[in-house]
């Protein structure tokens, strides 16, 4: 369609093309499956349950369970989770179910252990409440340390970037006004036929962040289009293949489905800032993202995709072949999806402390000072940490009372011998909990607070944290 519109124009394309198939295959964390186990004898009203050691929840009565893609195995953590359980079941493999209950007169059993395959389940439906994000952020990391996020591994100081989504192949990008897709639209889901059952949670169509809620019979699906995934340091997820046919009902749709990656913009977002509103470094197009490198602050950064373009194309092609051979029929939606909703932030009735709320001025020294002078300052100011700065107050290093003690013991006199140059720092707008975790992780008791130019603004210590907790 895209090529045809470009070469022959919208009018010709509208006459020639009946349906455009769109598709995506990416990590979609808000996915899961509902299963009904049937009753055991004696019957049980399940309270807690695990499938292959992954906790599953019990949304309904006695023997209905929901396998959430992001729930992790208690033993294997992010190496195996709900997404993998669903994949294993879809692949026809055996899964161990373990359950406990409190026991009632009608459901006396209190524990259960059995082996199940998908054929033993009465219902096994994929029920994804947020799939198919219209577009997603491009993630970078401005900090000095590797961070592990749901956008995968981000190397320090912008050494890589990641993005998600299929760009011009994404279903919602091809029908951005929701003319043809809505509740009841038959779609490709996980290798079988499924349905759009409404807008997805966080659906925000006005700013091109639309989502879908979908359902399909998982017993008929294929593990090729439904795969468990592991994100180190984040957890588990599931890659879901979603394909949507878009009937070309008017010239407008012919034009819309001709959308190119070069016309789809997304934000470059700094994931090292642990806040809801993260700093942004401008926008890039999906064309740039798919080229393998982008420019961030004038620097060339290599970028790679988290979604699989290869499988997304296969989704589109498979759906096309189903339509061609007459095994898939397009449907008219019975209700349109909302086009005005926005995704609002959470209402919070309790404030949490940030670094800025407890930090205090740092006691500093310069690199040419004697250790004895520093020792005196530690005593007179009654602190344990002296921050070493240059004449413009930029961070150079840190000296602790322990370093000074060691200098005495080892008869060292030069500051350079005892100063730590690789300083672990904090930023003013970080949650105190994050800064506190960082101290524990590095086994240290204070963090100089710096700004983006590395100028020292203050210091936050383990004492500040414990004082706050003791309030």
């Amino acid at each position, binding site marked *: 369609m895209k090529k045809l519109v470009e070469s022959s124009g919208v009018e010709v394309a509208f006459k020639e093309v009946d349906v455009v198939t769109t598709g995506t295959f990416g990590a979609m964390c808000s996915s899961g499956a509902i299963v009904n186990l049937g009753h055991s004898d004696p019957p049980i009203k399940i309270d807690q349950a695990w499938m292959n050691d992954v906790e599953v929840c019990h949304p309904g009565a006695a023997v209905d369970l929901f396998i959430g893609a992001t729930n992790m195995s208690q033993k294997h953590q992010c190496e195996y989770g709900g997404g993998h359980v669903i994949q294993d079941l879809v692949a026809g493999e055996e899964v161990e179910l373990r359950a406990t209950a409190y026991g009632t007169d009608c459901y006396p059993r209190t524990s259960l252990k059995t082996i199940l395959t998908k054929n033993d389940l009465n219902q096994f439906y994929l029920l994804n409440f947020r799939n198919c994000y219209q577009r997603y952020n491009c993630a970078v990391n401005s900090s000095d340390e590797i961070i592990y996020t749901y956008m995968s591994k981000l190397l320090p100081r912008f050494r890589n970037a*990641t993005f998600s989504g299929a760009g011009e192949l994404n279903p919602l990008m091809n029908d951005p006004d929701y003319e043809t897709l809505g509740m009841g639209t038959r779609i490709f889901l996980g290798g079988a036929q499924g349905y759009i059952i409404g807008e997805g949670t966080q659906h925000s169509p006005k700013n091109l962040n639309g989502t879908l809620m979908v359902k399909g019979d998982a017993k008929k699906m294929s593990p090729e289009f439904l795969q468990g*995934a592991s994100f180190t340091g984040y957890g588990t997820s599931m890659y879901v293949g979603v394909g949507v046919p878009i009937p070309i009902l008017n010239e407008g749709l012919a034009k819309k489905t001709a959308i190119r990656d070069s016309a789809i913009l997304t934000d470059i977002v700094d994931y090292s800032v642990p806040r809801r509103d993260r700093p942004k470094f401008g926008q890039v197009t999906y064309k740039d993202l798919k080229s393998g490198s982008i420019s961030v602050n004038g620097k060339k950064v*290599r970028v790679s995709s988290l979604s*699989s373009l290869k499988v997304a194309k296969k989704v589109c092609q498979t759906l096309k072949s189903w339509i061609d051979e007459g095994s898939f029929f397009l449907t008219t939606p019975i209700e349109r999806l909302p086009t005005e909703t926005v995704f609002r932030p959470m209402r919070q009735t309790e404030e949490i402390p940030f670094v800025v709320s407890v930090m205090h001025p740092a006691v500093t020294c310069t690199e040419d000072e004697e250790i004895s002078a520093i020792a005196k300052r530690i005593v007179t100011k009654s602190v344990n940490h002296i921050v070493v700065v240059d004449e413009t107050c930029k961070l150079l290093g840190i000296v602790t009372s322990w370093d000074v003690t060691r200098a005495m013991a080892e008869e060292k006199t030069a500051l350079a011998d005892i100063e730590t140059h690789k300083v672990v720092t904090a930023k003013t707008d970080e949650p105190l909990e994050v800064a506190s975790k960082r101290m524990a992780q590095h086994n240290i008791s204070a963090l100089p607070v710096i700004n983006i130019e590395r100028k020292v603004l203050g210091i936050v210590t383990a004492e500040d944290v414990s004082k706050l907790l003791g309030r």
Partner: protein
Amino acid sequence: MARILVRFNEDQVSEPIASQIIIEYKVPLAILSAHINSKGGEIIAEVPDDILETVVKAFRGRGVSITVPKLIEVNSDKCFSCGSCIALCPVDAISLAADCSVQFDKEKCVGSTCSICVDACPARAIKSIKPNNNEASVNREKKR
């Protein structure tokens, strides 16, 4: 160029063995990765083919173990070609083929001492193979 994996034990790390060999034999040793601490370490380096044997003998003469490193292993059944590993690779060994499949260049990959892509693979399709001393030596490798 031939690739070598040099492994130092606890007693050898304090000596500048690699530097001594570079100076003594005037070898342009290109170090691709190095991980060394007080307990031992590993260096992956490239040396020109014509002086490979000299270099190997020189390291062995100093009691240092030297092998050809085995690469990481990629399970193509598990890999669904997302490509999240591509931008992480420091030596451009991973790329997207014309059909959008992820492909590994085993010549370029520096193997298990790098392993930066291993824990970033959502499909867990990449495995790091720790080389051991029984592995094919440089000489045997050359005969193939």
